[in-house]
């Protein structure tokens, strides 16, 4: 029952007028970035991060996580009303959400989406609450080799479990590592890869990369497709809201299945996007109304939304507990943690329980608030998309560049955001995954430091990664298995074809 008393302490920290106000602001800003094309959760959090540098870490993380919830909700709103997924993870919601809205059931679809998203997130927070106490138990076993093994496992899982080409994931990740090594080396103090540019001494900020890759890149893609909103007028009818809420218990099996999928994909870095697609696919396979999927089947909204949000929520746990983010947004938040002077990892649970449990408690409150706020403000945010894109588009561009500049007040960052934008656009069109690059930029330094510190411990012998503890050996074996998985599966496929 230790977790329970910790959680109560957390509530006493999170439950203040200031924090509730921050949550409301975060959620509303989040819905805004979720609704606007080109701005998504990773980007929104990056833009907001420089404003939190002076805040207390608990307040800062509450603002950022609330923005994350809001962005997830905003993404589903545009999927249903405009057939435009505001986030990659809400693509699956368009399959049945938009047809429902076309048939005049917009309120029903939206309410279902928000309620299932809320339930998914709640499930995720409960899982986090239960697992967190357990994290502290093996916290003290962690030293440099273990950290390196965990990082390697994360990198390996992004390569081994990605849906696209593994080699493209490798390229993307190595580019991220290369960017992370630019600047002063933390161990030797040498200036690496700066090629004589003094602006590069402080390194290339992953925030600039996120703003370029996700923000500008996505905008360019939106523009290329020739933006056209076929919006459905959103008027929330209270009676329909209650009807939809009343129908929720009927979806219990879909809810439960999707929440479990989401948790699994969130904790292992499969990410919300993969979770929502997988959950949609399974819901369709097990449904009695298989033929109605894609034509406005309510379960087709419930499944991806639940999984999306439970994965998004669960991605916070490995970020706090191991310093391993389960999604691009979590990676950005983890970067924030380090900027605020906190070290993510198991020791955080021992040294800063107020931060950890305050965050977890705020996730309960923030999600409830997000469901209420998003229902109340849908018509307003839907109206934003009726503003012509020749106004909204440039405004988003301006916001992105201001965000890039505010990171460290450097002119170079304005220029760096441009090539990252082009890179994001090209990569997305050619099927290069972008998340591994962000992950490598955030974790690159830490992984390298952990590796070199381990080497100092072992006097240059690699065997430390197998012999230091049973824990490190297990993680290393898992990592190697995951890394070789694309090769193994390719060989198996060929073998089956021959046979």
């Amino acid at each position, binding site marked *: 029952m230790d977790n329970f008393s910790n959680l109560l302490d957390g509530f006493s920290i999170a439950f203040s007028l200031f924090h509730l106000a921050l949550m409301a602001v975060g959620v509303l800003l989040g819905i805004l970035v979720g609704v606007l094309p080109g701005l998504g959760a990773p980007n929104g959090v990056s833009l907001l991060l420089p404003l939190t540098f002076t805040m207390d870490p608990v307040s800062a993380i509450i603002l950022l996580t609330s923005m994350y919830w809001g962005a997830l909700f905003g993404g589903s709103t545009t999927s249903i009303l405009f057939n435009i997924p505001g986030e990659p993870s809400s693509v699956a919601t368009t399959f049945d959400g938009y047809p429902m809205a076309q048939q005049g059931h917009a309120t029903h679809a939206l309410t279902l989406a928000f309620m299932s998203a809320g339930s998914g997130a709640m499930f995720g927070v409960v899982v986090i609450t239960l697992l967190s106490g357990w994290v502290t138990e093996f916290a003290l076993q962690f030293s440099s080799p273990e950290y390196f093994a965990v990082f390697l496992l994360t990198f390996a899982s992004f390569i081994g479990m990605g849906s696209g080409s593994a080699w493209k994931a490798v*390229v993307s990740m190595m580019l991220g590592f290369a960017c992370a090594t630019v600047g002063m080396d933390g161990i030797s103090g040498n200036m690496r890869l700066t090629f004589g540019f003094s602006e590069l001494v402080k390194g290339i900020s992953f925030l600039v990369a996120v703003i370029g890759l996700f923000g500008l890149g996505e905008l360019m893609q939106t523009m290329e497709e020739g933006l056209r909103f076929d919006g459905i007028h959103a008027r929330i009818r209270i009676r329909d809201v209650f009807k939809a809420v009343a129908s929720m218990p009927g979806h219990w099996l879909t809810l439960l299945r999707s929440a479990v999928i989401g948790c699994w994909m969130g904790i292992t870095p499969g990410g919300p996007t993969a979770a929502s697609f997988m959950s949609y696919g399974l819901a369709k396979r097990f449904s009695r109304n298989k033929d109605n999927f894609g034509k406005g089947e309510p379960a087709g909204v419930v499944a991806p939304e639940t999984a999306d949000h439970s994965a998004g929520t669960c991605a916070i746990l490995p970020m706090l507990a191991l310093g391993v983010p389960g999604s691009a947004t979590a990676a950005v938040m983890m970067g924030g943690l380090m900027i605020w002077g906190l070290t993510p990892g198991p020791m955080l649970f021992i040294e800063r329980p107020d931060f950890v449990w305050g965050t977890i408690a705020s996730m309960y409150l923030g999600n409830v608030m997000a469901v209420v706020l998003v229902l109340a403000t849908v018509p307003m945010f839907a109206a934003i998309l009726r503003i012509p894109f020749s106004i909204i*588009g440039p405004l988003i561009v301006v916001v992105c560049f*201001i965000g890039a500049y505010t990171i460290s007040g450097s*002119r170079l960052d304005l220029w760096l955001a*441009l090539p990252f934008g082009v890179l994001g656009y090209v990569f997305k069109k050619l099927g290069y995954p972008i998340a591994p690059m962000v992950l490598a930029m955030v974790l690159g330094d830490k992984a390298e430091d952990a590796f070199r510190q381990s080497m100092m411990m072992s006097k240059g012998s690699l065997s430390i990664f197998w012999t230091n503890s049973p824990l490190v050996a297990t993680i290393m074996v898992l990592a190697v298995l995951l890394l070789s998985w694309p090769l193994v599966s390719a060989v198996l496929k060929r073998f089956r074809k021959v046979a």
Partner: protein
Amino acid sequence: MRTTSGVLLSRFAMEIATALVTASIGAVVCFGSLEFGTGWGDAGPQPGYFPFYVGLILIFASGVNLAMALVHHRERLEAFLTTEQAHRVTAFFGPMFLFVLVSSFLGVYVGMILYLFCVMVFQGHYPVHKALAVALSAAVANYFLFEVWFQVPLLKGPLEAMLGIH
């Protein structure tokens, strides 16, 4: 799949070009890391070790992608960009590039006003007074949000110095 009519750039060409670019970035990284020793010292790897192998893996993986492109995409006539799409992308990217260029000399506020105004007038075909109103109010809103409320200074240029705004 789109047909090849009006194709400006094929997917095949773009796959090749991207692989070549990523490989050359790898080469630059390898070259840059030679400065600090890429070997294995007394206390494990030297500072250049990690970036050097990152660069090597980058070159190798780009090579595999290049080979994959040659195998998979040469026969398929997929488009990366059609002429129409290219027009839309340049119409968006061009002004954005100019915005950054102007901003880095004249400050973000002046850049923002010019950018919003020009895009609205020339691309959105709005009347001048409307465009001016939107552009100016965006600058004022950003000023209050960043400089006054959050106390985060944005990049300023000679105009602000002349007007005495800091």
